[in-house]
């Protein structure tokens, strides 16, 4: 209904170019920011850019939902087939909405944390890098061209390395973390481009839709399989698929808290989107080797991530690392959902992706609020915070419960959907792993909540207070979203179902 209102009120040009404008606005705004004389102005411009992108993302979703085929095809410069195509269907639209929405909320809350974490004269450049990263992520999610995807992937990655390295002001370990991330990110991108190269050699096209059309004729072609393998591993690395996740804990732990929050809510999600796109739209389930990969590689790795990384999270003393390992475990849930390889499974994976960005966004946002007033992120530092910062910490608790999957929270809904999908597929034993992993989540989240609400402060002398209002508002929006979507999940479930149907090339599920 709101979508319809937006669609009717939007100007004609906005509707025609919406899909591209999501990417173009931040991309154009980024260099302008770099030249901005005032940090505050830069922040304001970044806010405008992300707001505009969010607006266009919502418009795009509306257009996709109201178009009969459910696909927007946008040939940049109208260079059919030789140029770059942006191709948005229900799947991309969902991802674009998540990325731009989270980017907007992140920018809103960013101001006080950037002031605390980044030197004043570098703030404009920092925000410039952020907008580039954001544009890159949106580009990955919007493009319909395999090589263009690589380009956007690199845009986002390169700017991410910069963002992570900016954490060096607080903690020198950010530099090696950024360096490691750079190496791993480069390997991932290289693997991806090698894979694309193999496929280009076999099909002669870089357009995804074209490639998908040509591939069935090449069944049994070894270079197609090699290309497939490289792409899966490359994107898996970017998505922090276990055991290719080891760059993630350091990168999340040492970067500025705003960056951590933004990356946790968006970066791995986009890589996962690309993986789904390749696995289901370009390749598809008719290839017997893909079925085997699902059963023998992705599902075991997903389960291993769920269990092993949850264990690791239990033993962390630093809250950021704990949440980082938990993120890898959550990626495991999504991978497990995808590896079921039917509409219900992919939909469950996508729903968890959506919910996970809500809960991790809220958790890291609350964490950033804590870092603002109280420099310390170990579990002990959190002791007693429930009394001095009740609003921040209740939002943290809500998101934490959602992470566990307590009923009436969003996390419960996605685990339920995942469970149904697994049961229907006959993998009821995997449900036991899901349950076990949730049980581990009870342990690590419970340990934190226990410290926050029941223990006496470890260091009573240090000042501790509520996070500023500008942090609290987006934080509570996310926390309430966690509860709202735990009670009425029809919106995200609808998105996920449409997305899964689009990925699998089915008629929209309704």
């Amino acid at each position, binding site marked *: 209904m709101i979508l319809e209102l937006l669609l009717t009120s939007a100007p004609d040009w906005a509707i025609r170019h919406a899909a591209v404008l999501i990417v173009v606005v931040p991309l154009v705004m980024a260099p302008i920011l770099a030249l901005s004389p005032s940090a505050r102005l830069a922040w304001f411009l970044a806010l405008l850019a992300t707001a505009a992108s969010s607006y266009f993302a919502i418009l795009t979703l509306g257009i996709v939902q109201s178009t009969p085929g459910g696909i927007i095809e946008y040939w940049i410069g109208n260079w059919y087939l030789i140029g770059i195509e942006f191709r948005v269907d229900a799947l991309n639209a969902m991802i674009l909405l998540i990325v731009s929405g989270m980017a907007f909320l992140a920018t809103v809350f960013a101001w006080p944390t950037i002031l605390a974490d980044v030197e004043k004269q570098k703030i404009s450049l920092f925000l410039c890098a952020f907008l580039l990263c954001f544009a890159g992520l949106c580009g990955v999610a919007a493009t319909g061209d395999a090589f263009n995807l690589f380009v956007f992937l690199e845009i986002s990655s390169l700017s991410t390395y910069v963002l992570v390295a900016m954490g060096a002001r607080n903690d020198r370990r950010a530099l090696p973390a950024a360096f490691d991330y750079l190496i791993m990110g480069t390997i991932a991108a290289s693997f991806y481009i090698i894979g694309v190269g193999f496929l280009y050699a076999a099909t002669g096209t870089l357009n995804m839709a074209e490639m998908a059309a040509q591939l069935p004729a090449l069944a049994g072609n070894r270079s197609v399989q090699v290309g497939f393998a490289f792409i899966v591993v490359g994107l898996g690395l970017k998505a922090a698929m276990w055991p290719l996740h080891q760059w993630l804990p350091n990168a999340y732990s040492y970067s500025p808290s705003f960056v951590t929050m933004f990356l946790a809510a968006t970066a791995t999600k986009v890589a996962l989107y690309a993986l789904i796109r390749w696995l289901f739209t370009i390749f598809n389930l008719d290839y017997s080797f893909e079925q085997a990969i699902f059963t023998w590689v992705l599902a075991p790795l997903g389960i291993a991530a769920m269990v092993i990384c949850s264990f690791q999270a239990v*033993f962390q003393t630093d809250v950021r690392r704990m949440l980082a390992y938990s993120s890898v475990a959550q990626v495991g849930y999504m991978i497990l959902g995808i590896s079921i390889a039917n509409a219900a499974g992919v939909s469950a994976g996508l729903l968890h992706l959506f919910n996970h960005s809500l809960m991790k966004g809220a958790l890291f946002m609350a964490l950033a609020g804590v870092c603002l007033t109280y420099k310390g992120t170990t*579990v002990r530092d959190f*002791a007693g915070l429930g009394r001095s910062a009740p609003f921040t910490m209740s939002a943290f608790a809500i998101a934490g419960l959602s992470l566990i999957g307590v009923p009436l929270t969003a996390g419960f809904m996605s685990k339920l959907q995942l469970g149904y999908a697994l049961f229907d597929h006959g993998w009821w034993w995997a449900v036991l792993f899901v349950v076990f992993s949730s049980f581990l989540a009870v342990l690590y989240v419970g*340990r934190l909540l*226990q*410290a926050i609400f029941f*223990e006496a402060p470890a260091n009573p002398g240090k000042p501790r207070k509520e996070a500023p209002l500008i942090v609290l508002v987006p934080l509570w929006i996310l926390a309430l979203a966690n509860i709202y979507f735990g009670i009425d999940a029809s919106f995200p479930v609808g998105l996920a179902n449409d997305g899964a149907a689009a990925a699998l090339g089915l008629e929209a599920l309704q």
Partner: protein
Amino acid sequence: MTDETPPGRDTSGRFVKRAAETVNAMSRTNDEGIHPMSKVLFGWTEAKNIGAILFWTLAILSIILVLADLVIDRHEYLHFAESIGFFGLWGFISFSFVVLMGWPLGRLLRRDENYYGDAGGPPDDIDPDLEGKPLHGPNGTHGGHH
């Protein structure tokens, strides 16, 4: 006061008063920490040779009960249980087996009290007047170390 009350109510008043005094006396622990009711209720356990008395009483009681089986016709779903003294025998064997198994099992399974780390003292809500009650020391704080 009691001296001036009319004789008719005097007796009952004195009776009530005496009863109250008795109750009071019977519920006050003496200086040696012995409760007067213990003599009334369990004084018999302090009798000389109580062990021998109990032993022989139970021995005789057991024999009587087994012999009663001859007279009383029990009906059981399982017919072997109708044999004379079945329940007594089974109870005796079971009990002895359980107790005697305590020796090897104790050796096998008993470990030092602090085997799983600090066994801890009594809970916080015991009698506050108790002598030697540990104050809120290191045991009382909830350290979050794992």
